[in-house]
């Protein structure tokens, strides 16, 4: 008699479907949490509703039909109002609408069509979120979504038996999760779980293969697709107030990850230059409007050649930057480079005169770009306009001309402040005469370091005057912006064009995956002073603790290294960016070439071994008496026989193996012997007339069945029963 396995009833399948659909809805809502679209209220409400429906499905079952009608109408009203209020934006209200429909579909009664709609909505949420955030979390969520969605579809397929499944439409009135879980435990066995896991792995494996093999070409956004911008969270914008950069340092989140060719290629004290602020007014630096309009170029490009490569300089490998979403629209650049590449066609805002590169909007998700032949330097070439403007040593138009490049020497200060600055300059220079930019920088930096301390909580300056001048006059501690601003004002007063630069300084090396990591806490402000002799901008960091006061002396500090669990978790992200997000045609080609090389190596190696083997065989055949022994022949023959048997009875073996795992007791020799006797008894009974059967046959049969299928019996007892069985079998003629 075959044992029938337990299976779920239609009602239980509906309950399981309800559970999985709830999980899918929660997953979809979770994925949307990462979006910055003002979805918080919707997500909170819908999340609570879904969780409640999962915990207490009976409440949903009690809702009358009229309630659903009211819900539909109110949803329509909310969605229309939302669209009207959010004009001209379309994506945020669209996502909010999807959330509401998702909730409705989750809670309302569903048949096959509505089930598919629910799945599509969940999928839509996940894809929207993944596309906009490009986060590692999406990878995890989609890997979770796949088995849930496939299980859901499988159950929907099982329930697709019209009209009988309609009778069991889930009313939610008889739900009991405890009962369902108990039933699931009964139904699931290692084989079902193993098969499910194998199928899931198959999907992951095939999709990985397809991901690698799908031919890549770019339509360059011929179809407008999901262009959503956001505001900068960091403060790295065109206008930086005093203290704005220091505020960023309080955030320890990752701002930038850089895949570098090697650790040796990274400068000991790297500066990631993002933005140049040339205009000063009342304690705030900003990029002058002239620079933002006249000198800014908006281009659409996938790659840019910025300058000719110095022939004497060796070509370096590519540097891949992964800038986190919301940091800034300006791209951190450590120095001049030859080429910059983006994954697709990208709208760019370039200000090449001041070596500032940015995108048209602040990217919401991780933005990555690759630069080639990067040159670490603390000197940046000045633009032609700057060179012409600053050629005169004594600049007569200071304070009169407000257009770039004169904004780099302009001082919007009161006469009193200007006089005070001039006096301070004279005092510092001490009649040294015409100093070089680097020497002047050294003197000013020394002065600042001697008289001021670095602190994120600067001295409070009272008064209504210029805050930087006030700090110079009365303060004793301050943050990087105050030091940089003081330097710039002093330099400009002394006749040296100078400007403030913001970005990141420093970072850490992730030892787990070998990449460089820059955090928001590395945000920094420093200065650049124009060196008229070399026609270059010299990088000066007047903040204490940043190295030598002479900007010409290379700073030698030790890099920070990150290790441990946090580094390991962060390394997952870089893997995600490297292997998934940044995968492109070149990687495809590299992979294909790598595979080709591997196969070629394997082929050559196999051919070599085969040749050697063939040569040996040939030699053996030529000298049979010496080399070939009967033992060899016997073993080859035995191996052949074993293989034939194995192949011929492969299904028997497999069944035997499965039986071993599922019912190991069935392989008990006593039970097997009892089974053999039972088979012989059945055979005899079929062959012989009923009348001629001994009378004790039913009794013996019952005993044998008990040994075969019942609780385990002792060997002696079994032996006695087998003896009787043999006797009976002999007696049947």
């Amino acid at each position, binding site marked *: 008699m*075959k044992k029938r*396995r337990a*299976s779920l009833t239609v009602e239980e399948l509906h309950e399981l479907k309800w559970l999985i659909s709830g999980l899918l809805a929660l997953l979809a809502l979770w994925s949307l949490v990462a979006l910055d679209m003002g979805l918080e209220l919707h997500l909170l409400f819908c999340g609570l509703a879904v969780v409640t429906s999962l915990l207490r499905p009976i409440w949903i079952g009690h809702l009358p039909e009229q309630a659903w009608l009211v819900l539909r109408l109110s949803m329509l009203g909310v969605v229309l109002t939302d669209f009207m209020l959010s004009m001209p934006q379309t994506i945020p209200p669209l996502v909010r609408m999807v959330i509401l429909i998702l909730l409705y579909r989750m809670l309302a009664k569903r048949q*096959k069509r509505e089930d*598919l709609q629910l799945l*599509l909505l969940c*999928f839509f949420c996940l*894809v929207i979120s*993944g*596309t906009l955030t*490009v986060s590692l979390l*999406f*990878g995890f969520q*989609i890997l979770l979504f*796949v088995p849930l969605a*496939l299980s859901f*579809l*499988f159950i*929907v*397929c*099982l329930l*697709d*038996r*019209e009209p*009988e499944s309609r009778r069991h439409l889930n009313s939610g009135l008889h739900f009991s999760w405890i009962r369902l879980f108990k039933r699931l435990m009964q139904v699931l066995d290692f084989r079902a779980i193993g098969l499910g896991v194998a*199928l899931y792995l*198959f*999907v*992951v494996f*095939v*999709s*990985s*293969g*397809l*991901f690698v093999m*799908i031919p*890549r*070409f*770019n*339509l*360059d*956004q*011929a*179809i407008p*697709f*999901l262009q959503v911008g956001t505001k900068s969270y960091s403060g790295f914008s065109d206008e930086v107030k005093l203290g704005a950069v220091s505020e960023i340092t309080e955030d320890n989140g990752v701002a930038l990850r850089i895949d570098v060719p090697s650790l040796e290629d990274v400068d000991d004290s790297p500066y990631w230059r993002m933005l140049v602020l040339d205009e000063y007014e009342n304690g705030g630096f900003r990029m002058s409007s002239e620079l933002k309009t006249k000198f800014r170029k908006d281009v659409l490009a996938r790659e840019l050649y910025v300058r000719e490569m110095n022939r004497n300089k060796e070509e370096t490998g590519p540097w891949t930057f992964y800038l986190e979403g919301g940091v800034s629209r300006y791209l951190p650049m450590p120095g001049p480079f030859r080429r910059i590449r983006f*994954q*697709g066609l990208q709208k760019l805002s370039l200000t090449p005169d001041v070596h500032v590169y940015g995108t048209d909007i602040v990217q919401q998700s991780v933005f990555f770009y690759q630069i080639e032949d990067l040159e670490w330097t603390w000197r940046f070439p000045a633009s032609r306009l700057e060179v012409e403007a600053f050629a005169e040593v004594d600049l007569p138009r200071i304070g009169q001309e407000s257009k770039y490049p004169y904004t780099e020497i302009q001082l919007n200060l009161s006469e009193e402040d200007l006089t005070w600055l001039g006096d301070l300059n004279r005092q510092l220079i001490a009649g040294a005469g015409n100093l070089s930019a680097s020497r002047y920088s050294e003197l000013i930096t020394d002065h600042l370091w001697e008289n001021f301390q670095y602190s994120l909580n600067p001295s409070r300056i009272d008064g209504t005057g210029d805050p930087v001048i006030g700090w110079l006059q009365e303060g004793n501690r301050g943050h990087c912006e105050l030091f940089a601003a003081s330097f710039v004002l002093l330099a400009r007063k002394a006749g040296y064009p100078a400007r403030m630069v913001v970005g990141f300084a420093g970072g850490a090396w992730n030892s787990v995956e070998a990449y460089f990591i820059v955090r928001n806490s590395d945000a920094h402000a420093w200065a650049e002073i124009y060196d008229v002799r070399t026609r270059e901008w010299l990088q000066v960091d007047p903040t204490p603790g940043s190295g030598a006061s002479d900007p010409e002396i290379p700073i030698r500090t030790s890099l920070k290294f990150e290790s441990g669990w946090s580094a390991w978790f962060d390394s997952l992200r870089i893997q995600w960016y490297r292997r*998934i*997000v*940044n*995968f*492109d045609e070149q990687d495809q080609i590299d992979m294909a070439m790598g595979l080709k090389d591997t196969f070629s190596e394997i082929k050559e190696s196999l051919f070599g071994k085969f040749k050697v083997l063939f040569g040996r065989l040939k030699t053996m055949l030529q000298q049979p008496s010496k080399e070939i022994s009967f033992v060899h022949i016997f073993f080859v023959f035995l191996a052949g026989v074993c293989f034939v048997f194995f192949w011929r009875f492969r*299904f028997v073996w*497999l*069944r035997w193996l*499965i039986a071993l795992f599922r019912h190991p007791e069935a392989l008990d020799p006593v039970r097997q012997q009892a089974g053999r006797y039972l088979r012989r008894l059945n055979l005899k009974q079929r062959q012989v007339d*009923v009348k001629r059967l001994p009378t004790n046959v039913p009794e013996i049969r019952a005993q044998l069945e008990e040994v075969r299928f019942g609780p385990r019996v002792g060997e002696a007892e079994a032996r006695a029963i087998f003896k009787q069985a043999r006797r009976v079998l002999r007696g049947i003629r």
Partner: protein
Amino acid sequence: MRQFSLKRLQRTRLTVAGWILILISLGIGAAAYNTASNILFMTLSLLLSSFVLSGILSVMNCRRLEWSLRAPAHLRCGESGRSIVNVRNRKSLLPAMCLCFRMGSSAAGKSERLHLHHALRAGDSSDMEWTFTPKNRGRFQLCLSGVESQFPFGFLSRSMGAEQIKEAIVWPERVAYRFKPDIGGQRFTSLAARRRAGPGTDLLNLRPYESGDPLRLIHWKATARLGKMVVRQLAMEGESGYRLYVNPDFGVWSERQFEQMCSLASSLAEDLYHSGRLEMFCFAGGEVSFIRSIRDLYDMLNHLALLERKKVLLDGFAMTGCRWIHLRPKGEGTITIYIDEKEAGQFNS
């Protein structure tokens, strides 16, 4: 049917869900190429791999399946019949799931789906019942249009196998009628005649039970001794039953009356047989047939099922004095039963 022709009958169609998946894949693919977003490429590859998995599982699910259709032996017009679809999974390891058979009949306008509600484990077989109600007597065709499955995710509908058609004969409908014959009958004088099997009280022989034999004829002692059902075969007696004469003459019956007559004749014959009082029957223009066992009765009912109105050239068979039952129309909705030209009953529609 040879194997290659069966293979040719395999067909895979996209379902609505499958079309949706294809359209979504196209949309995601276009967006992926448009934006060069690897997130979308990853999503696309997951969609495609799900589709690949669906195709592979669908093929594996339908492999090595055998099925057969068993039509019921007897059907009666207006009463529900039951056909059995036996399906066997000959795979070694994998179960077969979500199987569905499309069943149709010559009576029903459209086909119906017959679902296998549980998974069919490797090596197992299962019977599925399909009930239907034939509306007319005559030949009845049952059609099984192969197996269909949307396993595992409902993206693909895979069907395979040729149509299997089984034919059954639908006996005329049972009707209510009034039948009150005068007591009496012909007593046989010949010993040879008495040795014939027929309705009587004397035991003639014992024979194995056949489906449809009256339960009162079961010989319980012999059944117990032999271990199988045995029935008494009785010898024909003088006071035996009746002989049914059916005349399908074109001129006698209108079409509606003819159908009613067939129904009445079959009901009457069956009732008489089960009361052990039907000896023989005769169709006009045909030979007289004895009714010795249930098989003979079934033969008669089969004849009645297929009987058509026709011109009877010679209806001169001597049928008086031998308790012959005649059926004759009396008005549009009434059929009268005569025994030896005496009215013995009536049927009113």
